[in-house]
C-alpha cells in the first residue's frame, strides 16, 4: 500500500513542552535512533540536567546549543505505516515570527500547543493568526500538561470554548482540540486512561487520518511553465515540451488551454513524464506538456483554461511578512519579485497598515515594516503577474521579495484582493 505525505508545522517554546511532544511522537513511533538518543542523553548529563532534554535533538546549530534556544526552522521526518510526516519545527517567540511563517508556508496542519495551567496566551493567539494568514487548512490545538491540572475536563472545555470563540474571527477552516500530556504520553500516540471523558482521537491517529488531498485546489487549472524542453539530438526530432509543476487544477490530454500572457489558445497533445505519457496531471505533479499548435511560450508563462483564468495584474494587493534584519520595507522602495516561475521588479506604492500579531490591531499610521512585522501593501509590478487570491490558491497567490543589491530574500507575500487592470 502506498503512503501519502503530510507536512505539519509546530510552533512553541520550551515551556509549552513542544520539544517533549515532538520527541515523544518520534520516540513512540520508533523514528528516533539509538545513537541520536545516546548523544542527547550524553550532552544532557554533561550539562548536569536531571532529565533528557529532547530539544537537543532538533537544535542542531552550535549557537542554538550554546544559548539553549531554537533559532531556525528544523525539519524532522517520521513515518507510520499509514503516512510519512514532515515536521517543520519552529521557535515560538515573537522574534521568530519569520521562521513560523516559513514553516507554515508549506504545512497541511499547524500544531498549536497550550499549557493547560495558563490557558490561552498572546503567543497561542499569534500562532493561530499566522497559521490562518499562511492558509494552513487544519489547526490542531494540543492542550498540554493535563497531568498538572488533574486531567480535569472542565479546564479543557473552558480553554476549548474560549479558543474557538477567538478562532471564529480568523475563519479557521478546521480546528481540533486534544487534551494531552506530552511528558506522560497521554493522548499523544496512545489513548489516555486518565481522560476517559475525551472521546476524540489521540494526536498521532488524528494526524494519520486527517484528509488532506481534498485541501488541494483541483478546480482552477494553473500550470506555470518552468522550463522548455527542446532536445538537440537525432533521436528526438521536433519535440517541444513545457515542463513544470502543476500549481492547481487537473490537466488532461485533449483539453483546450490558453497561454498567458499571449492569450493564444491550443490543445494539450500529451502530458509526458520520463515513465511515459499520463492521462491527467494534478498538483504537485512535475510533468511536461506538449501542445498541438506551435505557439511561443517560455519560462514564466502560464497555461490555464480559456473559461477559468487567473487575474492578470500589475497592481497587487498583499499581506507581507518582512523577514530581513538589515533593511526595512518602506513605500517607494523597489525589489525583485518572484511569483510562480516569473521574476519581475516591484515597487511598494503604499503601506496600508501594520498588523499587531498579538492583538490583530491594525496600525494605519505605520510608515515602515521591520523584521518579523506583517502589513498590507500595494505593489506595482513591472510585468503582469498571473495571480489568484492566496486563500484560494497558495501557489499562485504567493510571492517573495528579494533585495536587488544584496540578493537577500526580504519578504514573503500573500495576495489578497485580485482585481483586473494592467
Amino acid at each position: 500500500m502506498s503512503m501519502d505525505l503530510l507536512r505539519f508545522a509546530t510552533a512553541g517554546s520550551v515551556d509549552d513542552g513542544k520539544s517533549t511532544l515532538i520527541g515523544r511522537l518520534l520516540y513512540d513511533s520508533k523514528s528516533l535512533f539509538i545513537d541520536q538518543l545516546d548523544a542527547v542523553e550524553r550532552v544532557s548529563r554533561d550539562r548536569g540536567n536531571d532529565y533528557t532534554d529532547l530539544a537537543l535533538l532538533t537544535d542542531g546549530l552550535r549557537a542554538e546549543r550554546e544559548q539553549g534556544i531554537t533559532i531556525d526552522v528544523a525539519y524532522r521526518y517520521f513515518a507510520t505505516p499509514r503516512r510519512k510526516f514532515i515536521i517543520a519545527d519552529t521557535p515560538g517567540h515573537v522574534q521568530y515570527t519569520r521562521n513560523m511563517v516559513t514553516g507554515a508556508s508549506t504545512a497541511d496542519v499547524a500544531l498549536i500547543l497550550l499549557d493547560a495551567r495558563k490557558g490561552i496566551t498572546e503567543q497561542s493567539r499569534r500562532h493561530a493568526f499566522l497559521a490562518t494568514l499562511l492558509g494552513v487548512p487544519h489547526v490542531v490545538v494540543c492542550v498540554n500538561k493535563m497531568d498538572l491540572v488533574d486531567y480535569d475536563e472542565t479546564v479543557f472545555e473552558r480553554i476549548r470554548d474560549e479558543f474557538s470563540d477567538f478562532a471564529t474571527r480568523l475563519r479557521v477552516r478546521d480546528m481540533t482540540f486534544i487534551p494531552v500530556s506530552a511528558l506522560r504520553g497521554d493522548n499523544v500516540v496512545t489513548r489516555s486512561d486518565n481522560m476517559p471523558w475525551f472521546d476524540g482521537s489521540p494526536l498521532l491517529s488524528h494526524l494519520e487520518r486527517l484528509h488532506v488531498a481534498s485541501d488541494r485546489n483541483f478546480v482552477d487549472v494553473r500550470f506555470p511553465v518552468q522550463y522548455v524542453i527542446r532536445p538537440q539530438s537525432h533521436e528526438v526530432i521536433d519535440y517541444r515540451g513545457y515542463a513544470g509543476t502543476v500549481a492547481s487544477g487537473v490537466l488532461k490530454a485533449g483539453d483546450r488551454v490558453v497561454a498567458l500572457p499571449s492569450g493564444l489558445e491550443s490543445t494539450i497533445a500529451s502530458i509526458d513524464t520520463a515513465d511515459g505519457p499520463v492521462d491527467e496531471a494534478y498538483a504537485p505533479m512535475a510533468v511536461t506538456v506538449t501542445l498541438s499548435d506551435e505557439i511561443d511560450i517560455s519560462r514564466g508563462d502560464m497555461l490555464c483554461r480559456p473559461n477559468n483564468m487567473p487575474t492578470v495584474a500589475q497592481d497587487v494587493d498583499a499581506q507581507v511578512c518582512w523577514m530581513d534584519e538589515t533593511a526595512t520595507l518602506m513605500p517607494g522602495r523597489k525589489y525583485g519579485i518572484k511569483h510562480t516561475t516569473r521574476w519581475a521588479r516591484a515597487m511598494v506604492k503604499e503601506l496600508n497598515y501594520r498588523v499587531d500579531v498579538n492583538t490583530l490591531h491594525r496600525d494605519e499610521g505605520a510608515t515602515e515594516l521591520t523584521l518579523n512585522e506583517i502589513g498590507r501593501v500595494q505593489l506595482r509590478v513591472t510585468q503582469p503577474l498571473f495571480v489568484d487570491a492566496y486563500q484560494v490558491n497558495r501557489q499562485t497567490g504567493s510571492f517573495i521579495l528579494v533585495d536587488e543589491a544584496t540578493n537577500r530574500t526580504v519578504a514573503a507575500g500573500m495576495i489578497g484582493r485580485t482585481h483586473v487592470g494592467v
Partner: protein
Amino acid sequence: MNTHSLSQDRALEAESIHIFREVAAEMQRPCLLFSGGKDSIVMLHIARKAFHPSRIPFPVMHVDTGLNFPEILAYRDRWIEKLGLKLVVASVPDAIARGLVHEEPNGSRNRIQTPVLLETAEKHQFDALFGGGRRDEEKARAKERVFSFRDEFGQWDPKNQRPELWNLYNGRVHLGQSIRVFPLSNWTELDVWTYIASEGIEIPELYLAKERKVVERGGMLYAVNEFTPLRDGESAKRVMCRYRTVGDANLTAAVESGADTVAKIVEEIGAVRITERGATRGDDKTSETSMEDRKKEGYF
C-alpha cells in the same frame, strides 16, 4: 471524495524534479556532485527524468579522493557514458602533489577534499552545485536550505540563511558566490531505498550483503583490502555484511547484514534503530558540531 492524491515517493520525486528544473532555468553553470553513493545515484536518476527526453543539461563532478572503492569508479564511468554526460574530476591526490592540500595525520581525506572541490568549482565557474545531502542525516543538515547560499569562499553561514517559503527558491548570486542545491532534502534513508526498489535502479554491489573478509576496529567492521590492510596482531574473519554508506574505502565500515537484495535492504532499513552515519562513519563522531564546522569551510 477526490482520488487525486500522490503517494509519498511520487510527491518527493516531483519536488526533486521541480528543484532540478528550477536550477537549470535560473543558474548560469550548474554541476551535479556525484560520489557514487546511493544518494547521488538517485539524484542522477531524477535529473535524467527531469529533462527527459533531453539530456541532463549540466556536467557531473566527482571529487576523487584517490581512496575510492574500484566498483564505484566503474559504476561512475558506466553511467556517465550511458547518459552522455561530461565528467569533471577534482583530484585530491593531484592537489596533494601540487601542494594545495596536505595529507592529514589520521589518513582521512574528508576535510582536505573541500579546497579541491572549491578550486574545481571556481575554475569551471560553477554557480550551482547539486549535492545529495538529506536533512535526516545530521543535525546541521536538518537546518540547511534546499538552495543553500555560499559566499565567495564557499562558506555556509547558518545564521545568515535566506528564508525559503513555498517552492519559491531564490538562486540570485553575485559573481563568485554560489548556491549548493539539495534536491533530496526531504528524503530519508528509507525513502531512498524504497525509491531504488520501486524504480529498479542499478546500485553498486557494495550495498548488497555478501561474505566479506573484514577486520573489527573500535566496534566497526572494515573490509581487508589495499586501503585497510591488516595491522600487526589483527586477524581477519569472514562475515556476511554490506555497506550502508559508501565513502572513502579506508574509512567506511560495513554492517553485518543478510540483505542481499534491494527488497531486503528496504526491510532492514525499516527496522534499524541506528543512523547510517553513526553506524558507518568514523569521521562524523568527532564532535557535536563537526558537520557544521566542515560546512562552514565549504564542505557539503
